[in-house]
């Protein structure tokens, strides 16, 4: 029964992945470092964007299931928080790898546009292929359409995180009073703002878990409004990557294997996330983490995958679109060319235009 269902055929998948690693490594132009038992495993810190939650289930699983160890690294996680982002950890050398929002990374990388030797975040693999960002608004404050937001308070995360929303609102020429949004949705729940930024997999569900039914809210999903920007990706600093390209690739494949595992064993994944959260004194509950995992998996492994496997790959078109939005919102003046932002994105598929 277990083996008969390909969806659960984790081991098959894992073996294929490992084989793929073995086959692809030489093609990447690096000398394959077979598991050198004599050499000590590399110490790698991965900064995760936020406190422990299902957004990182694949990472926890990759570690728990020994995929990282198999990749020759001893991985530790650094959790970012409101005070210190994962990007900062990466930039400050407190982590070798980090998960970062595409927009955040692009804004950070844009600084290196004019200085070819400056260290900047380099995308190793794109995890979340679609946008989960949304605006949530109170119907009882009269918000049915985007235009209704005019003149209202909207709480938004500071920084590039909310760039898509800002761009959208600017495009629609909606005048609003921005309120800095913190880690909670309580200001929104108190009715202190007419709308707030939300991740579909997190804040939206938190609000629902505070007893607010969908029919009381108007939701604007950015991906439905022409702002379907990819989100989480795994980054390294360009200077570190120069010397650890193979390791980075192995760790990326191990991470993907972790997510494949989570896809095959969602409950086990949630169990692990809850344990991580408990250890970090993060207050959460199983239904929420399950909800988050489901949405993350749907974002990492899009249903539209079709013939060309997009999992793990940043589409150059999405990159271009995101860059345009960032420029339009004034966050950057020019985006780093994709060849520098993500050399491997072009290496494999080649003929895409931005490369």
């Amino acid at each position, binding site marked *: 029964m277990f083996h008969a269902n390909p969806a659960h055929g984790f081991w098959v998948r894992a073996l294929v992945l490992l084989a793929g690693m073995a086959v692809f490594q030489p093609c990447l132009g690096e000398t394959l470092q077979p598991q050198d038992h004599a050499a000590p495993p590399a110490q790698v810190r991965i900064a995760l964007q936020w406190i422990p939650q299902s957004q990182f289930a694949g990472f926890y699983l990759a570690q728990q299931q020994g995929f990282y160890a198999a990749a020759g690294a001893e991985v530790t996680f650094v959790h970012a928080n409101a*005070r210190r982002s994962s990007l900062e950890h990466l930039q400050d050398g407190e982590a070798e790898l980090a998960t970062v929002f595409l927009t955040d990374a692009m804004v950070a990388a844009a600084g290196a546009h004019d200085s070819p030797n400056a260290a900047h975040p380099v995308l190793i693999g794109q995890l979340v292929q679609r946008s989960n960002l949304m605006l949530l608004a109170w119907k009882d404050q009269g918000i049915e359409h985007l235009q209704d937001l005019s003149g209202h308070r909207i709480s938004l995360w500071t920084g590039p995180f909310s760039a898509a929303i800002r761009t959208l609102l600017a495009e629609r020429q909606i005048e609003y009073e921005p309120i800095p949004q*913190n880690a909670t949705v309580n*200001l929104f729940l108190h009715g*202190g703002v007419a709308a707030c930024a939300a991740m579909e997999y997190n804040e939206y569900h938190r609000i*629902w878990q*505070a007893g607010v039914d969908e029919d009381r809210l108007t939701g604007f999903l950015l991906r439905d409004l022409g702002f379907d920007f990819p989100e989480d990706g795994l980054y390294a600093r360009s200077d570190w990557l120069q010397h650890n390209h193979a390791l980075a690739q192995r760790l990326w494949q191990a991470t993907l294997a972790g997510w494949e595992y989570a896809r095959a064993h969602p409950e086990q994944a949630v169990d692990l996330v809850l344990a991580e959260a408990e250890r970090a004194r993060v*207050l959460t*509950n199983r239904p929420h983490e399950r909800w988050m995992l489901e949405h993350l998996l749907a974002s990492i492994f899009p249903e539209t995958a079709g013939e060309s496997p997009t999992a793990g790959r940043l589409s150059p078109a999405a990159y271009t679109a995101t860059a345009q939005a960032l420029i339009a919102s004034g966050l950057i003046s020019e985006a780093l060319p994709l060849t520098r932002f993500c050399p491997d994105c072009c290496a494999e598929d080649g003929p895409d235009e931005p490369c």
Partner: protein
Amino acid sequence: MNPAERMNPADLGIGPVPAKARLRNRLLVSTVGIAGLILCGLLLWNYLSFREHLTEEAQVRARFLADGAADRIDATLSGLQSLVDGMALSLSATSLDLTLEQMRTLQREALHQQPGLYGTTFAWLPERKPPDWGALAPFSYRDGDRLAYHDLAHDGLDYLDEDWFALPRFLGRAVWTEPYIHYTGKRMVTYSVPVWLASPDGPLLAGVVTSDIELDWLDRLLADLPLGEQGYALLISRNGVYISHPTDTIAMRESVFSLAEARGDPGLRQVGQSMLSGDPGMRPWIGWATGEKSWLAWGRLSTTGWTSAVVISQTQLDREIARLTQLQALAGGGGLILLFLAVGWIARSITRPITALSEAAPGIAAGNLDAPLPAPKGQDEIARLTTIFHAMRDRLKQYIADLEETTAARERINGELRIASDIQMDLVPKTFPAFPERNDMDLCAIIQPAREVGGDFYDFMLLDEEHVFLAIADVSGKGVPAALFMAVARSLLRAEAKIDRNPGRMLERLNDTLAEHNDACMFVTLFCAVVCLSDGTVTYANAGHNPPLWLRTTGSIEWIDSPTGIAAGPMAGLQYDTGHIQLAAGDGLLLYTDGVNEATDPDNQLFGNERLLERLHASQSLSCRETLDALLADILAHTGEAEQFDDITMMMFRRLS
């Protein structure tokens, strides 16, 4: 009655009383049965009304406890709330014109005053901070027993993003934050009040005063509520998150809605929404831990906007009621057994004499009057019945004794009467042929006495060689008086016949004599005749008697019915004519009493004259004896089994040549 006549009671059709019909058992079954039914009804009623009552009470109690819990928590929190409100007010009133040191003194004072306070902060909106203040967010708090101090802005301005600052800042009012877990591991909640400074453009936010309050005492407070074994209390935040819950893993992590989601229970989600609506309420509930039917009641805290709720087990209540009912049933059952015993005892004491009576009575019914009867005890109806039974038995005994005595007396009288009858029979000549030496006449007579002594007689005698005297009589009535009267009449008649041979005069004298001293009006019908054997002349007289028959040799039979007179005895001075007939040789006379022609068969049909004449016609060639025998045989054949009340008396005379 002699013992041989006594019967076995069973032969009377009186069997023993079947167990089902026995008085005692019926009394027991009916009394205990009815009492049992009443008891069951009472128990049921009790159970139902009890349940209704207790259920109502449980609801009231649940509501009361939920509100009470809310009030008690409010009482504690509102003290702290007013302290912070007061601080904010006074800071605002003094336009925050104080130094950092003064602020810290104020905070220490507050912590001293309020043991429930963990810490307190005043956090500036950075741009409002006076330049002489060395800290943006001075925070005084307890560190064990001592007070500690820390500038929350020491590591940056991150506090601006905390709910405790952001919420009052952007809401413009005091706020109770969602409870959180402090780094010390304790649950805490923060109450934050914005402090305003007057400005020409209106009040400006200067900063926020906060107080941090530990919440672990909430568990104790809720645990102390009297909720019964299966009851529990809980507290949920504005967002529906459990602040206090008997299950540790639920508190602070799960909300009503997350549980509803985990259970796939949209109903629970609705309950959660009602609980957060701000209105107190109540609804039936299934306890999660126990799966028992319960009541959930909730009330809202006026300070924090949280909801306190209690769950009171209905199942446990039901169990208690069932237990109570069981106890009652047990007590009732015991009572029933006592009643059973008591009724049994009473019934026994009542029915024992009845049973004894009913066991003794068949003996009496069967004739054993000496069978022992129970002695009457007490003065109740049964004692009365027993007494009456005794009296009845005694009377019966007395009656039987009397009856025996009477019977004996009657037997004696009967015996005497028989003797009288014998004497009577002895009076009439019964030896036939009466005159064997004479061949000029044939004479025979028969008297067939009835059971009771009657008054018939016949008589005959030779007055001389040529004359024979014949008489037949019937005295009125029966018994001894008739017998005596008959004896007297016969003696007198004999005497008269010897004095004067004229039958008429004979009867006149007889009548006169009998009429003397005859107050009873007894009388005798009598026919007498004197026959001259030589020439066949017959003189006769009749005192109201059946006319005799003259059986002539020619074959004709005639009634000798004239002259006739009145029966003798009732009154003196009667006249009797004497008649004459001439008997040819071979002619006969038949004298008889009405016992002959009036002999009745079982259908009350008389023997009658027809049959009499028929027989006589048929017997012309027979002797007197043969004729009478044949006649008697005819009569007896006619009567059959029918008892005859009259003597049958006949005398036949025939003159021979």
